[in-house]
């Protein structure tokens, strides 16, 4: 479903080139929950941005459902983000001037979906995530967990096959974070969605089916959870 071939991202800087991602290769099938685990600055967010077309690679390709992102123009990439990929941000990124329901249905409205239809689906999603009675609450009146659930609903609004989550539990307490992770797990298992999650939390990473350790822009797939022997990745780097 998602294939990444020799993906590389670097930034030109006054002090020289900074390589954020070094020749990454991976394949992710439908229904897989993948964790990109690594410290801050390891390249996790960069990889997620490249997967949804928010950023463009310096080299390599990302192919989603047979479509090469590099061959897409801005509108095609935008439509990809609207219909194929749902994004969950670390800081929720809800629009402060819209209430919870309006935030959720925004992707559908961008598609020109009938307002009533969009509202009905939005309410159903909010109810599914226990927010039925907070549909008209403004984001600044919601707790962090509630906001993140609203963000997840928004990401699911157009029923995309791919969910990308960048540090989804980074700003949440552990209990709320676990709840979010359960939701993501369920999405991959029950709805057969690809879920790719960037995280620096070992506890969060263990929810995933596959783990990729990222360090200095390089990707290492590990067969065991990061909770195994500290500092000992057990599988050789498939990129070498």
């Amino acid at each position, binding site marked *: 479903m998602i294939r990444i071939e020799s993906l590389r991202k670097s930034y030109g800087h006054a002090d020289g080139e900074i390589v954020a991602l070094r020749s990454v290769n991976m394949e992710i099938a439908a229904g897989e929950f993948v964790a990109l685990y690594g410290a801050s600055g390891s390249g996790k967010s960069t990889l997620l941005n490249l997967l949804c077309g928010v950023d*463009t690679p310096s080299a390599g390709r990302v192919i989603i459902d047979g479509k090469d992102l590099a061959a897409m123009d801005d509108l095609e990439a*935008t439509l990809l983000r609207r*219909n194929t990929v749902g994004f969950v941000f670390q800081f929720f990124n809800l629009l*402060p*001037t819209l209430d919870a329901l309006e935030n959720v249905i925004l992707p559908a409205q961008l598609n020109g979906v009938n307002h009533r239809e*969009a509202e009905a689906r939005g309410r159903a999603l909010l109810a599914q995530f226990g927010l039925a009675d907070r549909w008209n609450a403004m984001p600044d009146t919601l707790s962090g967990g509630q906001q993140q659930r609203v963000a997840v609903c928004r990401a699911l609004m157009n029923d995309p096959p791919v969910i990308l989550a960048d540090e989804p539990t980074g700003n949440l307490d552990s209990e709320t974070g676990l709840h979010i992770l359960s939701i993501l797990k369920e999405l991959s298992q029950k709805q057969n969605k690809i879920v790719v999650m960037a995280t620096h939390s070992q506890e969060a990473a263990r929810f995933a089916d596959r783990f990729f350790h990222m360090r200095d822009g390089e990707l290492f797939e590990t067969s065991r959870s990061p909770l195994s022997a500290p500092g000992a990745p057990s599988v050789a780097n498939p990129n070498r």
Partner: protein
Amino acid sequence: MLRLIKIFNARHLRRKPLETFLVLLGIALGVAVMVGIDLANENALRSFHDNVEAVAGRATHEITGGQSGVPDSVVARLMQNNNVVAAPVIEYLALCREAENRPIRLLAIDPFVDSPLRGISLQKQNGMGDEESDLAASTAKVSLSQKDFDSAFDSFVKFATQPNHALITQSFAEQCSLHAGDSLHVLVNSVWKEVVIAGIIPRQEGDRLSDENLLVLDIATGQELLDRLGAVDRVDLLGDEAAIEKLAEQLPSPLRLTRPQRRSEYVNSMLSSFRLNLTALSLLAVFVGMFLIYNTMMFSVLQRRKQIGILRCLGVTRKQVVGALFLEASLFGVFGSGLGLFLGYFLSQYTTPAIGSTINDLYVFVDITRAHVDGSIIAKGFFLGLIATLIAALLPALEAAKIAPAVATRRSSLETRATSFVPRFAIAGLGFFVVAVIIALAPGGVLFGFAAALALALAAVFFTPLFTSTMTRVISTFLQRSAAMTGLLASRAIRGAVSRTAVAIAALMISLAMVLGMQIMINSFRGSIQTWVNSILQADFYIAPIGSTVAKWQAVLPDEFLLMIERLPEVEAVNTYRAGEFEYEGRLIYLVSIRAEVLSERTDFIFKEGSDRDNWRALPRGEVFVSESFAQRFTVAAGDSLMLQTKNGFRHFRVAAVFVDYSLDQGQVMMDHSTYAVNWGEVRINSAGVFLKQHVDPKDLLHKLTMLTKEKYAVQINSNFDLRRQVLNIFDKTFAITHVLQMLATIVAFIGIVSAILSLLIERTREFGTLRAIGMSWAQLRRMIFVESGLMGGLAAFLAMPAGFALALILVHVINVRSFGWLIAIRSQPLEYAQVAAIALSASFLAALYPMWRLKRISVAAALREE
């Protein structure tokens, strides 16, 4: 503290070059408009004042005789007084053919008594004292060659004894390449007259008179040349105050004692309303600029609130934070005002001739030869710009002081606090509105009118947050139901940042309201003038001396010319028009004579009361009409009595009616020519209106008149149509500068909205990144931004319309009436409102272009990373 400033201020300003430049430009334009107008007002009058002072010389008093002047018999008696120097004077502004028909001042004096006052000398003097500048004495004091002495003496003899000989100043001679012995042709009372140059008055250091374009005549020559036989304009006096006062007691009516400065005071008074209105308009740009500064400073505080919080956590005090912000504002004020002074000087190069031209057309002749830079005006402009900046920065600085250490105020809580102020602001707005109404209706001077206008403007400004909040709520509700997503996001965004959006909307609104108010006032005024012109200008032709453009009421038509016109078989009737300056209750007005028997049947004067027939019948009985502006200024109505000083003493004149008039805002008293002749003895006329018999082709008569007059008389013959057009052209020219000032104020408001929209959009970069990340296309985002800025412009226009109309009411019914005494009917047209909407929408759409361009250059990933 310097380190703090370097960190806090300098780097922030360097990182935001465009926003910094926009603020500087806004301040600069505001200061430039103010300085440009002030310099123009000052320069326009300076030449007049300088000339009055230069011509008056050392005279401490003068004796004037009004319309008839001072008779020769009185002059002779005054000159016999040993305790006082009494010098007769005649002055006239004439066009000079050799100077390419530019004006030259004719000054007729008695050279044997004038020296103590004006010290006109034919020889260059070196370091002589004031008392020693006597024409004759100077020859003994200065060491000159015998040849130079002989030459000067010859010139003096010719000047004093030979008819039509005159002296000219060296500056004039150099300008026109003239020499002693050359002939000059000057236009006096419609006739070109030849004068021979007897000698050149050299430039004298420290003597302003010798710098003027002056033609000096012997008093007898002057009387003959200027058709003033038997009288002079005035007698200048120098001597002991008590002796002069004693002289004055014996003066026959209507002669009176006054001071030379009185003429300047009259002109100052005449022009005060005109200048005050221009000054008030110029301050509009500063007022609007203050919104720009407030908004920019507030944005910058919000953008740096995290920085400020951290600095506070590290130990920086509130005072230091406020101090840093005031210093930043001061830098804006200093550099912006400095730039404004330069721009103001360049603007004055346009405004000075424009204002001078209007003053020439409507009031007195002013000849602006040099643009002076007055230090006090420069200082005033600079400090006013600086103070306005600091006042506008006060609230943002206090806001910054409230930021708690390391707990940077979240925007949402700031907006929550701002939202709670919205009702209070609305109440303040209501309060200002009530104050505006009370002041407008209360009796008082024109300053009350301006105060009412300011209160009304503040009312509209304080009402803007509630208006913005309410309207966006209504629009959001409507858009929500109709599922217009981009519109909903746009309206919510405006409402969500009301503490900033309302300020930007208010700035644009107030500028648009002033534009609309002024436009309604100008169009109403034009309409009233058109109605008045149509009613009063009914003659087929109007004839006036060409030189009347500079000599004003001194230029008259020769008697034989009038007789010639009256005798033409094609002519049915001729109205004669005579206007003369007159002092009434310490103010300058005009006495006007017309022929009632001609006008009563042929014009349609607009009287405030009474029937036309009854009113006209009263004039030949010795009663008078007064103009509306006279009636307003002196609180006079039909049936009242005026006491006017005539040649036979004071006399009462009954006011038969008040009539509408826009020609002389000082006010006029109109009477039949017979009444004028009996009481003031002056029968010479300034212009004539010619009524043709039926079936006479006006073009044929125009040709005939032109042929009759071209060899002998320099007159301008205007058809009825041409004169009406001229009147309206003068009107349009008068308000041309108003349009320029309005445009500049609108530019300042435009800069304000550009700056506000730029800051608002840049601040939401991450939000836009989110929208793009979740699938909003660039076209949808662009549409949203356009809707948002268009909505801001639309809200500004919507509120500007009632505010502008209310301002027009104050301009027309309060300020105009109290400034000029004119009553105008308000006429408001849909086109005026459409123009306001078009300006607002254009400004706001244009304002969004650059921010959109900047946003497009930021990648979605980078936008998501923005704080």
